[in-house]
């Protein structure tokens, strides 16, 4: 039922009984099953990139408490402490900026309108009235409030949407029977909807990058002359800014797509994202294919594999680790350029959210922009973790412990 790893677990557990008699007391009551579970949990955690929780699991199960406690402190508490210090510095900086902006306003009122206006301005700022608040870097508390406001807004919109759906459900059924398109909700998208749109754009861009870069990378990797031929073009195009790619794609798409019902801004933004992000995969794939271990090539020669077998049975599996390293870079580049591209292409998503907030200059706009910044960072981090797990899955060089 569990050949392989069961045996390994028993092997690692066995020596514990002899040399560490004091810890053995803690070990003996934990049965064979929980040992399994612990190993499994730790393996999974490591795999999904949450390896820092490993000492905590070991600590809870009573394994070498001192060592694991200090390991946990180091791996989990230190990062949390650094976040705390970061927030503290941010708070201090934001307060200083707020005070300096406030005193500048009071001073301005004094020089332009006299002492009475200055006192009025001071009172207005202290009262927290929206009309005269200093417009500067928001403090962590304000950002947190803005986050809560955005979430409340999302809940409200989601509710409205649901109501709308239930209202039009019957009509839509009729329309479907008549072969007409269903009525869809066209209200303002919430912040969460914007995130969804951005993820969709990045996914489309990533798939485009993959379907262009991997096959071309393989062909280039196989032929030394092709690699030499395209090297300069790649070196020139690789550093081109996302903005320029967007304009280029815009020129082409504008001419090619004349159908007004198609979502042009989405097409433009996902193609631009794909074109910006594909270079890492292209370079890595061609490098991976070109540097397949000579021993494997010799095996293929001795077995007289044909070109197709050679590519699919030897070259592609051998270069998968490098291809996935490239794809991981592609995902993070795609997510990074997405915001700028959405902003310029006026395609809905986080980019346009940031731009609109910057333009409308409402009292909590700055705080909302900072919320978007953290959301963008967190999602980028999660995407990278997912790609890292996939990459680990594809790497065969490591012995799977």
């Amino acid at each position, binding site marked *: 039922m569990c050949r*392989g790893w069961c045996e390994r677990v028993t092997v690692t557990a066995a020596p514990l009984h002899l040399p560490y008699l004091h810890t053995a007391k803690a070990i003996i009551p934990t049965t064979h099953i929980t040992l399994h579970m612990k190993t499994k949990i730790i393996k999974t955690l490591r795999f999904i990139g949450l390896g820092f929780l490993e000492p905590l699991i070991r600590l809870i199960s009573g394994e070498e408490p001192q060592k694991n406690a200090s390991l946990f402190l180091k791996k989990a508490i230190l990062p949390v402490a650094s976040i705390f210090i970061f927030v503290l510095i941010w708070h201090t900086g934001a307060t200083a900026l707020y005070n300096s902006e406030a005193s500048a306003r009071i001073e301005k009122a004094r020089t332009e309108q006299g002492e009475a206006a200055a006192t009025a301005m001071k009172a207005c700022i202290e009262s927290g009235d929206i009309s005269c608040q200093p417009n500067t870097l928001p403090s962590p508390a304000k950002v947190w409030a803005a986050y809560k406001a955005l979430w409340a807004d999302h809940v409200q919109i989601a509710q409205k949407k649901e109501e709308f759906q239930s209202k039009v459900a019957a009509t839509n059924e009729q329309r479907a029977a008549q072969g007409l398109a269903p009525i869809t909700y066209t209200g303002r998208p919430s912040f969460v909807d914007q995130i969804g749109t951005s993820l969709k754009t990045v996914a489309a861009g990533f798939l485009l990058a993959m379907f262009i870069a991997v096959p071309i990378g393989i062909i280039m990797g196989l032929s030394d002359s092709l690699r030499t031929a395209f090297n300069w073009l790649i070196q020139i195009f690789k550093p081109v800014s996302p903005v320029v790619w967007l304009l280029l794609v815009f020129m082409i798409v504008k001419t090619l797509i004349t159908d007004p019902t198609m979502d042009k801004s989405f097409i433009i933004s996902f193609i631009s994202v794909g074109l910006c992000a594909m270079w890492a995969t292209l370079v890595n794939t061609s490098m991976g294919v070109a540097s397949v*271990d000579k*021993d*494997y090539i*010799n*095996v293929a*020669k*001795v*077995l*007289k*594999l044909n070109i197709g077998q050679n590519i699919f*049975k*030897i070259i592609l*599996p*051998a270069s*998968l680790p490098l291809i996935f390293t490239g794809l991981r870079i592609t995902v993070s580049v795609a997510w990074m350029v997405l915001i700028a591209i959405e902003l310029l292409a006026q395609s809905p998503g986080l980019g346009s959210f940031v731009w609109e907030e910057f333009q409308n200059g409402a009292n909590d706009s700055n705080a909302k922009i900072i919320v978007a910044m953290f959301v963008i960072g967190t999602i980028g981090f999660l995407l990278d973790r997912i790609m890292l797990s996939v990459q680990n899955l594809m790497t*065969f*060089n*490591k*012995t*799977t412990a």
Partner: protein
Amino acid sequence: MEALLKEAPKVNHHLDHMPNMLVCENLQKVYPTPTGDYVVLDDLQLEIKQSEFVSIIGHSGCGKSTLLTMIAGLNEISGGTIYVDGEPVREAGPDRAVVFQSPSLLPWLTALQNVLIGVKQVFPSASKAEKLEICKYYLDKVGLGNDFHKKATELSQGMQQRVGIARAFALKPKILLLDEPFGMLDSLTRGELQDVLLEIWQKEKITAVAITHDVDESIFLADRVIMMTSGPYAKIGDELVIPFARPRNRKEVLEHPEYYDYRAYLLNFLNH
């Protein structure tokens, strides 16, 4: 030493009736360098009978691996011709199976799949069950036991090399080429694998050429030891027929009264 030379036959008489399986004629290998051509092998002549096990020894860099890769078709021939079963060698092929120094298993495949990929090439018309049977037979013979479905990376070096040997035999080649097959293993594992190799070879009697720099290994494995001179312009310096009866047993070979004479003869060649 002189006495041994007179006694030791230069020809393997038990192979007299066998045809030549491998013939190298005026073989030459030249590597061009910026300072002129570097001649590794020059005017090399070699004849190996069918079902003969030959080991080639020589100092590192003498070109013995070059010779083997040329026979395998993995290295270009600069001059002369290599005939395998009467046909000149032009490219690599499964009729000349190679056991490489590093096991060179495909790490993303299991032990079984590593053997199967070759069997599929050589027996395309066999049924799936027959192909699997061939693979399992050889994996069993090399002592892989229950590890058929382990990934190559999960196996130890020695186990990987066992799979390498099974993969080579499963191709049913005309010639088995072994390029320092046990060079990367510790001496205990090396001994085990030599026994495994000889045991399976005893049944198949495939013409075999083994490169080695281990004098004892060359005697234990081979019917004939070929000694190569040091390069450049390396050629065959001397050869020694090992008449020990087969199947061979390590203990018997080591206790053979003439064993140390043969060993001394080879060492004497290498040290001059």
